């Protein structure tokens, strides 16, 4: 009798060990990467965390609620510009970080509602086209809002954006804390890590909540969902707003981290890239989305080394690595569609939809069972 609680105890102890190991690993990661690969890779790691947040935001819209959004980068742009315009010499405003972060998320959320409201009746391809247009509209606005009144500084972008400052400590400079030297990318890493973990936590809670179930229902069948008593309109708008606010949050961080933003950073290719992250990783499944985002941020950077390799082996660059990157990337996506169509770490439902090869055989068995009765 006593063995049952004992195994339970062992299980929780085991879970705790994994948890602690993971925590220590994540805390030491930037130092290991700095020592092993160099400072520039810590920056790439920071960017990877930003993309994880973005991908998790888009995952709410596409993965949970099933609304295909091809203009998601617009919310990243809104968050970034919100931060940049209120914390740079542009208007001479220097609002504190703790005010800018929620503000960026909230403004992006409003833009999410702005996109959601007119597209409520659209589905699938039609929704994709409108969202794509929306993303472009935002970018073009940012590009052109420098005349007659200069608001966004047009294609030149916004410069000298204040770095994130927490409790008087600027993350833009190297800091020594308890005798340990943290460079700026290290400091940003810890901030982004904390926020990424919070976004993961919120995503998990949302998925298991009543709202999450309602999203799953409208993803499957809107009419049936409404017949269950779900207010489809509000639940869809909530998906757009929640997803957008995650994007806005990441955008604000991006602006503070980079110190410079321009409309160029928010083009269609970025939207597609984020969508690829969640498709590659496994739509609707949080570990899959995180993996997809990290892989697709890190891989293109790693492929840059192909240029160096060519120089070392052949003496000069034969194939431009940036061309090769897109080629290999396309190749990787095709391979994935062939071998893991539901993503690297698929969600349960996607697995059922795409992965289950036995589904037809199963259906036949059912019919046989019925016939026998």
């Amino acid at each position: 009798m006593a063995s049952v609680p004992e195994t339970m105890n062992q299980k929780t102890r085991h879970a705790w060990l994994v948890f602690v190991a993971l925590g220590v690993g994540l805390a030491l990661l930037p130092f290991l990467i700095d020592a092993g690969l160099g400072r520039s890779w810590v920056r790439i790691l920071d960017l990877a965390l930003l993309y994880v947040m973005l991908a998790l935001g888009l995952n709410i819209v596409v993965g949970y609620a099933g609304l295909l959004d091809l203009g998601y980068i617009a919310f990243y742009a809104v968050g970034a510009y919100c931060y940049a315009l209120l914390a740079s010499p542009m208007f001479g405003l220097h609002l504190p970080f703790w005010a800018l972060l929620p503000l960026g998320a909230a403004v992006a959320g409003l833009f999410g509602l702005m996109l959601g409201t007119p597209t409520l009746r659209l589905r699938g391809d039609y929704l994709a086209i409108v969202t794509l247009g929306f993303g472009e509209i935002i970018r073009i606005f940012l590009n052109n809002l420098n005349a007659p009144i200069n608001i966004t500084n047009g294609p030149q972008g916004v410069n000298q954006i204040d770095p994130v400052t927490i409790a008087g400590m600027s993350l833009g400079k190297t800091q020594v804390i308890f005798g340990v030297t943290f460079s700026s990318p290290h400091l940003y890493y810890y901030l982004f890590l904390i926020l990424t973990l919070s976004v993961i936590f919120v995503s998990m809670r949302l998925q298991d909540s009543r709202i999450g179930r309602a999203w799953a229902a409208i993803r499957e069948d809107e009419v049936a969902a409404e017949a269950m008593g779900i207010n489809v309109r509000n639940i869809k708008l909530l998906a757009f707003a929640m997803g957008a606010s995650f994007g806005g949050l990441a955008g604000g961080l991006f602006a503070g981290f980079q110190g410079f933003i321009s409309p160029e950073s928010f083009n269609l290719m970025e939207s597609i890239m984020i969508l690829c992250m969640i498709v590659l990783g496994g739509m609707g499944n949080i570990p899959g989305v995180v993996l997809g985002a990290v892989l697709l941020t890190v891989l293109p950077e790693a492929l840059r080394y192909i240029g160096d390799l060519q120089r070392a082996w052949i003496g000069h660059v034969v194939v431009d690595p940036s061309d090769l990157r897109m080629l290999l990337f396309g190749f990787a996506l095709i391979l994935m569609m062939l071998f893991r169509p539901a993503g690297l770490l698929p969600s349960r439902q996607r697995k059922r939809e795409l992965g289950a090869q036995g589904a037809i055989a199963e259906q036949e068995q059912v019919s046989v069972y019925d016939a026998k009765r």
Partner: protein
Amino acid sequence: MSLLEIQHLSVSYGNIQAVRSIDMALQEGERVCLIGANGAGKTTLLKAIAGMLPITHGSIHFGGHAITRLASYQIVHLGLALVPEGRGIFSRLSVQENLAMGAYIRRDKAAVQHETNEIYQRFPRLGERRNQPAGQLSGGEQQMLAIGRALLSRPRLLLLDEPSMGLAPMMVKTIFETIHDIAKRGVSVLLVEQNARLALATCERGLVMESGALTLQGASATLAQDAAIQKSYFGE
């Protein structure tokens, strides 16, 4: 006051009037069937009651509330559930998840759990396959799931649209036994059915619909004896 009261109800698809000025009432605890040929407007009438179609004229009252202009999700909250034609199950969600969606509007988790287990007892096949995607169930099992799911919203009135469609005779029998049991527990039933004989045998009262209008109504026993009905709907 009747549970469901419909006055001069008309519904149009563009220029085509699918339901023409219908008046009907349904009492609490009553089982009523609606029979008629294909295209008579039966499904349209059910959908209009459930708030899934815009109403051109007339009014609908349910449990004392005017529901004519309410959205379908609001009507569910008042205790009216529709099992649509073709069942409308969430095929990629598991059987259990489908049933949980039926209880979406409820907060009393313990009671929902209890009623879910009751449904598994009534339909053992659903219990066996509770973790499988609903799309892999057979047609009859899907119909049971759709009915079970609708019951979990604790409706006062259950609208059933062609529950026997495409099912083996054994399954049809099970489904109609279930409808009987549902009514015994005090849930009112409005049943649309092609199989007029079975429908009249299950319900106390019948309504006959022809090209969008009600042409006949009365006690099932009387209707079943009606020569015109026997000729048109029993195929005799």
